């Protein structure tokens, strides 16, 4: 049991909130709970050790021992992989705990990479980094299911993101189609993990890593025109709505990467879309088939998630963040009418998003969400500061009003919290 709980128990005893018998029972409960928990720290150090050893082997191999005969080098190429395989088999067959499973899986994945590297090096096998990463991913992907290793999922996600970025963003870029399949491979494991160990650290990390990977890679499916913005907006809409599923929404906000990435992405993109140049360019742009297909697919996904939330009655209040991608999507479809009305409506949507965030902040008594809303409005005003012909006095007044808004809304929230505290105390 930690000292914080001990301190709190003695405080409650002194204040006569609980009696000594209850304190004893609470203490016993937490003792049992701590003992039943697997040693997480041991697992973390085990994985870190395996990670460092694996990376160390890769670096030693990268030195290139050109004095060594080819046969000896080939023998050493296979050695780390065979050790990794023995460790994994030992963990599985001897039914070892999480520390063994996670460490041996980490070591095997890295040593497979080391083996292919060394063979490529010995025989000067041509091929760029992305093809090397793809082979590596393909022959290590089943490990996550066979060993039920969460770290294997983590490494898999990092490797496929690296592969897609290397293939899609650099010279002679190609579309990384295999990324989609490799990502789909992870999903059943991810869902299972969320059902069984939703509160584990690894679930929290994956809640961030999965959407981040998608955000990083989506750009490889576009040639970079105005439709790319709408495609990304659709992705952020999908992510935000996934984050609103009760499963994620009931978790702490810091564990809900979907909501945070979806919300930030929507706001940043929409702020860019409040500039006139975007809508002027949008009228002239021509797009490739792939961009159109990806955008349509993302919009369908967004509508499906939104529809699910409605059918299951998970949406109680109207939240503009969930619909922003649809509104802008419709505006984009009608862009030929002219840029002015789109421009005005996008500015209104961004301002409304700011107000919604303020409302959510006050409703949830959260200073961070409240000030996030105010920041959205400030960002919008700063953008308009540069590209409108408004009088200096008017612009000055706008800034003063937002500044006053910061003070006023924070003060309101503070007052609300004090009133709630007083009410709770008087009830007791």
């Amino acid at each position, binding site marked *: 049991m930690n000292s914080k709980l001990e301190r709190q128990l003695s405080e409650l005893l002194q204040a006569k909130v609980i009696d000594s018998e209850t304190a004893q029972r609470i203490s016993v409960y937490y003792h049992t709970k701590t003992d039943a928990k697997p040693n997480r720290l041991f697992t973390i150090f085990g994985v870190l050790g395996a990670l460092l050893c694996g990376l160390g082997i890769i670096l030693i191999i990268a030195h290139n021992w050109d004095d060594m005969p080819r046969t000896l080098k080939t023998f050493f190429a296979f050695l780390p992989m065979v050790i990794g*395989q023995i460790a994994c088999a030992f963990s599985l067959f001897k039914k070892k705990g999480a520390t063994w499973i996670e460490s041996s899986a980490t070591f095997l994945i890295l040593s497979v990479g080391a083996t292919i590297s060394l063979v490529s090096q010995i025989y000067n096998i041509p091929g760029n980094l992305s093809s090397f990463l793809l082979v590596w991913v393909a022959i290590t992907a089943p490990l996550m299911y066979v060993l039920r290793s969460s770290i294997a999922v983590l490494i898999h996600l990092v490797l496929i993101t690296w592969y897609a970025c290397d293939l899609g963003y650099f010279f002679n870029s190609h579309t990384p189609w295999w990324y989609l399949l490799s990502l789909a491979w992870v999903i059943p494991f991810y869902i299972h993990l969320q059902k069984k160990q939703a509160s584990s650290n690894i679930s929290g990390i994956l809640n961030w890593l999965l959407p981040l990977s998608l955000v990083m890679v989506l750009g490889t499916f576009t040639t970079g025109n105005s439709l790319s913005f709408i495609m990304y907006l659709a992705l952020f809409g999908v992510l935000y709505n996934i984050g609103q599923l009760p499963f994620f929404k009931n978790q702490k906000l810091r564990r809900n990467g979907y909501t945070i990435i979806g919300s930030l992405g929507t706001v940043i993109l929409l702020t860019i879309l409040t500039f006139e140049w975007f809508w002027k360019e949008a009228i002239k742009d021509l797009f490739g088939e792939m961009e159109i297909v990806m955008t349509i697919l993302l919009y369908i996904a967004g509508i499906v998630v939104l529809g699910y939330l409605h059918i299951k009655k998970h949406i109680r209040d109207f939240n503009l963040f969930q619909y922003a991608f649809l509104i802008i999507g419709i505006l984009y479809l009608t862009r030929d009418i002219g840029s002015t009305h789109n421009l005005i409506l996008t500015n209104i949507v961004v301002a409304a998003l700011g107000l919604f965030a303020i409302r959510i902040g006050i409703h949830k008594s959260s200073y961070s969400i409240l000030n996030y809303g105010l920041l959205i409005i400030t960002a919008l005003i700063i953008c308009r500061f540069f590209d409108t012909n408004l009088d200096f006095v008017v612009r000055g007044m706008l800034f003063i009003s937002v500044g006053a808004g910061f003070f006023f809304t924070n003060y309101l929230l503070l007052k609300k919290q004090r009133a709630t505290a007083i009410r709770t105390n008087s009830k007791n």
Partner: protein
Amino acid sequence: MTKKLASPVLVLLFLIQLFVPAQMIYEQEDALKSGRAYKFKTQPIDPSDPFRGKYIVLNYDLDSFETEEDWSMYRGNVYVYLRNDTEGYATIKTVSKTPLAITEDYVIAESNYNYGKQVNFDLPFNRFYMNESKAYDAEVSVRQAQRDTTKTCYGLVYIKNGRAVLKNVFIDNIPIQQYVEEYQAAIE
């Protein structure tokens, strides 16, 4: 995955993991043992790969060919058919978009940015991995050698059934590792 299924799948996975590098080795060894040797004139430069270490990129003199057809819009793989000249260096017999029924050895190369009747391509065996202390000096020493004298740098490549294995790089018939060691000894 159920425990009963996990064991055979794990064993199968281990076999695949062993098979992939073993197959890579087999194909390379086969080309080295029974393939025909070609010398490709080249210039090395020195970049680095995070996993496989330092290597030199070989810019081959053979990187284009004049044909009768128009290649302006073509982007993709080409079949480069080879033969040796009187000095033993590789030359091109012909380049084609599809395999041809001729006996000459060929390699498959990537072709981009073509114009008119000239087809441009990058030969695939353009990486030669070197010890990390030698890769940069290899680039410098070869550049100096080429500036000062008429020394030639070439890659020795074994080719069989379209598979090409770069065995070594030579500067005036001296293996590049030995040449760099001599260069490093001279500048110390």
